[in-house]
């Protein structure tokens, strides 16, 4: 029996409403669309919550790569790397069902990233050679998707589309792949750093980190293509950045961003953040790590040695 040091926080965070009116005006968002986030305590008996921490505690070295909506987990044992090099983060991965039983899947020896489909029927895997493939959990069949894929892909909520970056890093472009037709559509062509994809709740657009002008911002683009539009750092130029202008936080690849009840949540080296659809920071947990979506409107995260969960409540 493992001891869980789950601290169900009873902290009720005050609504974090950042009145970034200037940014709202720049993005053309009506004030009534402002979003606030309430953080509520959650109990460990929540299924996905329990599964997540059960496997997290199995080894200090293990990392939870992804958790499915039903409680499946991919845990990864990161390969050690020497210092001062450009080594890729790779895992020896294991997939487990919601009961903790190991799934006998044809996983590559090492992977860079893995993501369960929303219906938890398949697992999308990026191997160490940048090849992206889909593993059917029932049949264990493998379908190759694309090569030269960059870590940080995302699945649509209906499970039919995959958004990802492809290219010779850092010269990357965004693509969306339709699993029903087996075809990919190129969404950008600037060959610039591109990563951190998240489908919108209606699967009609994709938010991602993009750096067409020499610094990273979050952009959105329709799944059918079109010109990407900046969601953050609107109106800021590279000269402004070099003069010290502050940039809105971005996901840096630790975990892909995800929409939770209208808030784009993600983590980076500074902590966990939530952005409203107009690019304002509406939730901020400095130092937070291991951010996972735990349900329709819940995110889990780890901070100061304790586990927390936040329910994203949209207040119009």
């Amino acid at each position, binding site marked *: 029996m493992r001891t869980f040091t789950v601290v169900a926080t009873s902290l009720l965070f005050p609504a974090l409403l950042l009145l970034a009116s200037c940014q709202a005006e720049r993005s053309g968002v009506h004030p009534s669309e402002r979003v606030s986030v309430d953080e509520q305590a959650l109990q460990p008996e929540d299924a996905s919550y329990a599964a997540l921490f059960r496997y997290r505690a199995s080894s200090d070295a293990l990392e939870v790569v992804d958790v499915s909506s039903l409680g499946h987990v991919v845990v990864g044992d990161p390969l050690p790397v020497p210092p001062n090099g*450009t*080594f890729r983060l790779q895992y020896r991965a294991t997939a487990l069902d919601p009961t903790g039983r190991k799934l006998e899947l044809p996983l590559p020896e090492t992977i860079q990233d893995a993501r369960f489909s929303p219906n938890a029927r398949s697992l999308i895997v990026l191997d160490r050679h940048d090849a992206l493939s889909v593993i059917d959990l029932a049949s264990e069949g493998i379908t190759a998707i694309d090569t030269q894929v960059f870590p940080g892909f995302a699945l649509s909520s209906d499970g039919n589309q995959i958004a990802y970056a492809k*290219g010779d890093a*850092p010269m990357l472009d965004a693509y969306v792949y339709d699993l029903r037709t087996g075809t990919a559509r190129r969404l950008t062509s600037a060959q610039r*750093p591109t990563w951190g994809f998240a489908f919108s709740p209606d699967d009609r657009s994709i938010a991602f980190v993009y750096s067409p002008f020499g610094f990273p911002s979050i952009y959105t683009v329709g799944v059918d293509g079109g010109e990407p539009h900046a969601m953050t750092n609107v109106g800021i130029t590279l000269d402004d950045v070099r003069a010290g202008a502050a940039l809105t936080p971005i996901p840096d*690849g630790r975990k892909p961003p995800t929409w939770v009840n209208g808030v784009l949540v993600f983590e980076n080296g500074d902590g966990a953040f939530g952005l409203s659809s107009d690019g304002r920071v509406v939730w901020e947990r400095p130092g937070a790590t291991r951010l996972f979506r735990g349900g329709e409107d819940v995110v889990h995260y780890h901070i100061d040695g304790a586990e927390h969960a936040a329910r994203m409540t949209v207040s119009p």
Partner: protein
Amino acid sequence: MKRAVMVVGIGALAVLLPSSPAYAAKFRRPFSASIGVNYGYDNNGGGGCTDFACGGVCYDGHSGTDFPLSMGTSVLAPAGGRVSATNEGCSDWGGLGSTCGGRCGNYVRIDHQDGTSTLFCHMQNGSIAVSTGEWVSCGQFLGRSASSGNSSGPHLHFGLYVGGSSRDPFSGSCSQSTGYWVGQGSYPHNVPSASCETSCECSPGQTQTSACGDCGTRSRTCNSSCSWGSWGSCQGQGECAPGSVEERACCDCGTQTRTCSNACAWESFSACAGPDPAGGTEACDTGEPGPCAPGIVRCVDGCRACGRIYEPQPEMCDDIDNDCSGETDDGEPSEMGDPLPEMAARLVDVGYPGSMVSGTGSTGWVVFRNEGSRTWAPGELWLEATSTWQDEASELHDVEAWPAYGVAAVLDREVPSGGDVMMKFPMKTSAEAEGVVRETFHLVDREGTALKCPAVRFDVAVMTRRGSSVEDGAVAAGESDGVVSEAGGDAGCSASGRGAGVPGWFWLVPLGWIWRRRMRRARP
């Protein structure tokens, strides 16, 4: 002997490749510190890694060369080129798995003239000193090293791309026979040379021509040591330097200039121009009459010239020679000036018989308005027949009635400025007169000088006929004082009159009289 052979060999090469100085870029190490390779390029497409020397100083899938530079080390351009991309905004400590900057973190990419590109990853945020599109030279500071993006600690990831694909910059049995460093150092932790490439400037025998001097040309030839010889003398120069300006003085004052064209030829001199002598205060006489006479000395076309102060205007009735014709108020100007002239008269109306029996007399009348500034005194103005000015007798001269020879009437009252006066003028035709008898009457002063303006004369034309014994009856328009008026021109047109001593009923006989009336209206 050996040297001579070499020269011949190079010369032959020059003949074969007269204009092919192409060469692959050679790089210096992109920093000053003597630091060697930590992890090299993986030349093995499969599992594991193979460095350029077929050793293992690399890691699986590594597409560049890692140099373990500490935080803040200056990163330098390995060769000249153009910055094709920069990226900033990534944390200096990205850590393993960071995707910021597409794993590369903050970076600079340079496209070199031979088609190769170099990439410098994991740099310090805010340290990048070059911008996209900027040309950099070998050794130029690009920024500082850090550990941004996907990095397990501070280092510089040096990437080389040839034809768009990554390439190991080192030569070796497991990479390629020719490396990309000026000097690649010693295996296993090679420290490439810090010297910039000294490349062949040109192909022996190649000539180069350039512009020189003032639209001239010069040429130089590439010598056998692949460097350019001295420039030859400048040939075919033009007469001036493009854009230069030459100035010269004009005859008395001012200057004129000319500009050298882009073809190094002088253009035409401009017109002379300069300030007026003595600041435009020197007075002179233009030699012109009237108000145009006073002038100031000006600089006109580079020469002294007396320029008018006053420019001629249309003549007006004002005792001034407005048009500088030499005569005051000439041409009978109708427009009054300001101030008013001393003496001026305007014809208001006139009436006289249109026909007369030859040898009979009659009387006409005329109304003048005093438009001068001075009151007319009695006897001061005469109505003179102008035919007498040519020493001819007036055909309407009434020797008995006219106060003087040629003078039909004399002002008999005082007329203030603005006032009207009627003057009656007797007329008599000779017994031999037949047909139309004409005369022009003009107002003159007592000195015999004709008034000039605005309307000081009128014409009379009388039809004469012979045979009737009916006396003219001294037809006297002048009797009709009350008929002629300045304001009532139309009423005045039917002026009538009768001769002195003739009964009034006589005027009712229409056949005896043909009246002709002429009226001139003054300009308002």
